[in-house]
């Protein structure tokens, strides 16, 4: 099909959509109907409303040459610049430079869960603003720069707002971000501290998202780069770096099984895209892998559809402590279903009590304090093993996408001092705390 110009369905006419340098990014392609568009600040197909995603001219050369090039790159996501929609000199620009977070071999947790293969936690709490959102925002910043935007914005369940605020501060953009009014204090403070504007919306995340989608089509939103709306095709590509890092940290091997949290579903679909690219480029051996999605029971539109055998996701009104996953109308839900079924994985959910238990389990076995989304993935992993859906003899990677310090409210009611005593040895002994 002919390539349409971005101007035909641009969602902001304030940006310069002329020739842009986004490295290997060649065009935008509709995931539904395949129609292609020039690179621009657009996100939905003009023909069918389907999501647009970046199509690439992937690098040539042997796999060994590409691995060497990656190994010589910086210890952040820019080591994968040849596979991302960013200019070749991206590492020299002001950005938050996230990524290359730890892949923790979780032997203690494995023993607790009865895993005899190898179990790993990809701990993305180590990013600059303590969640995986730094990855996607860093890419969106480069797109915003290329398209001439001066304000960064987003709809957020909290983590993204902080990531946008920080990236805007570093990269020299103004920021104005929107969140549900009732988020955890840790996320609200973290989103506000970087000096941009933070607006609480009276409603849930889906209400915030709707507001932003309307704002973007209004003169009020002209000149704004909404990282997860009109920059979403680029933004989403940041999640591919999780796939690249996991495989590189495993010694350029595919894991057998990956457990990924689902909010909009974008992260899961892009990790799958990243794995497929590595196979296509010959950087990893082509072999089967299974992708599992994890949701909170109180916001489980995708797992409900999966279990029912549906290929359409019916929206839900969220009610869960896992607020970073509380998207009742997930944009990429249908694709998550496709990927889980194609790879032989599944989509499962756990309730709030199980989420808290899983946060504590990960903390006491591996010394990793996860936010509620990490409780969801660890809890779902446990449930999948118990249900026989996840093979405990294989190599499994579980994502922790954020830091527990941001969701203290979830564990505070059941976590605190063992005892409070006078500063005396007798009091210590009397409290039953002495082990000698």
């Amino acid at each position, binding site marked *: 099909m002919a390539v349409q110009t971005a101007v*035909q*369905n*641009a*969602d*902001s006419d304030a940006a310069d959509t002329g020739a842009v340098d986004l490295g290997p990014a060649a065009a935008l392609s509709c995931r*539904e109907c395949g129609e292609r568009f020039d690179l621009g600040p657009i*996100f*939905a197909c*003009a*023909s*069918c*409303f*389907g*999501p*647009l995603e970046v199509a690439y001219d992937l690098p040539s050369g042997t796999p060994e040459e590409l691995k060497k090039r990656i190994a010589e790159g910086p210890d952040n996501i820019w080591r994968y610049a040849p596979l991302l929609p960013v200019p070749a000199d991206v590492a020299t620009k002001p950005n938050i430079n996230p990524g290359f977070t730890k892949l923790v071999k979780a032997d203690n947790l494995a023993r607790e869960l009865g895993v005899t293969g190898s179990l790993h936690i990809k701990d993305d709490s180590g990013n600059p603003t303590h969640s995986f959102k730094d990855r996607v925002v860093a890419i969106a910043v480069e797109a915003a720069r290329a398209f001439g935007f001066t304000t960064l914005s987003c*709809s957020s369940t909290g983590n993204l707002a902080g990531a946008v605020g920080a990236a805007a501060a570093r990269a020299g953009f103004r920021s104005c971000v929107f969140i549900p009014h009732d988020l955890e204090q840790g996320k609200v403070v973290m989103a506000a501290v970087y000096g941009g504007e933070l607006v609480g919306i009276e409603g849930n*995340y*889906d*209400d915030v*998202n*709707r507001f*932003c*989608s*309307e704002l*973007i*089509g*209004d003169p009020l939103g002209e000149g704004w780069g*909404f990282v*997860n*709306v009109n920059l*979403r095709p680029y933004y989403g590509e940041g999640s591919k770096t999780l796939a690249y890092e996991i495989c590189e940290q495993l010694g350029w091997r595919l894991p057998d099984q990956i457990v990924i949290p689902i*909010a*909009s*579903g*974008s*992260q899961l679909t892009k990790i799958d895209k990243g794995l497929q690219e590595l196979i296509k480029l010959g950087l990893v051996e082509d072999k089967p892998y299974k992708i599992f999605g994890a949701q909170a029971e109180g916001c489980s539109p995708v797992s409900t559809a999966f279990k029912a055998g549906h290929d*359409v996701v*019916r*929206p839900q*009104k969220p009610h869960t402590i896992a607020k970073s996953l509380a*998207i009742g*109308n*997930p*944009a*990429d839900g*249908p694709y998550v279903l496709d990927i889980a079924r194609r790879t032989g994985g599944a989509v499962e959910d756990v309730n709030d009590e199980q989420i808290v238990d899983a946060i504590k389990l990960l903390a006491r076995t591996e010394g990793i304090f996860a936010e509620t989304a990490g409780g969801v993935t660890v809890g779902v992993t446990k449930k999948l093993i118990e249900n026989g859906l996840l093979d405990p003899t294989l190599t499994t990677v579980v994502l922790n996408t954020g830091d527990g310090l941001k969701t203290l409210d979830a564990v505070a009611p059941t976590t605190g001092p063992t005892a409070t005593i006078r500063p005396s040895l007798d009091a210590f002994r009397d409290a039953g705390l002495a082990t000698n």
Partner: protein
Amino acid sequence: MSVNVRIPTILRTYTGGKAEVAAEGTTLSEVIQSLEASHPGIAARVLDDQGKLRRFVNVYVNDDDVRFEQGLETATPAGAGVSIIPAVAGG
């Protein structure tokens, strides 16, 4: 009954660039028919070949997502605001 329909940028080629247009109908289905009569071609962008809402289109009547209501049969009272919004946002 007359309602106000907010048109996303992606569909404004059909409305002469207008972000908001008036339409008639007591249900969303009738409103879309009315839009089609005034702005030919727009219905095929919102509805699929079976006449259902495309899966990547969200429609709100006032503040209610019609998927939580009666879909295309959702009532559209006089003066209601109808918003058509691309679904591929957020996350």
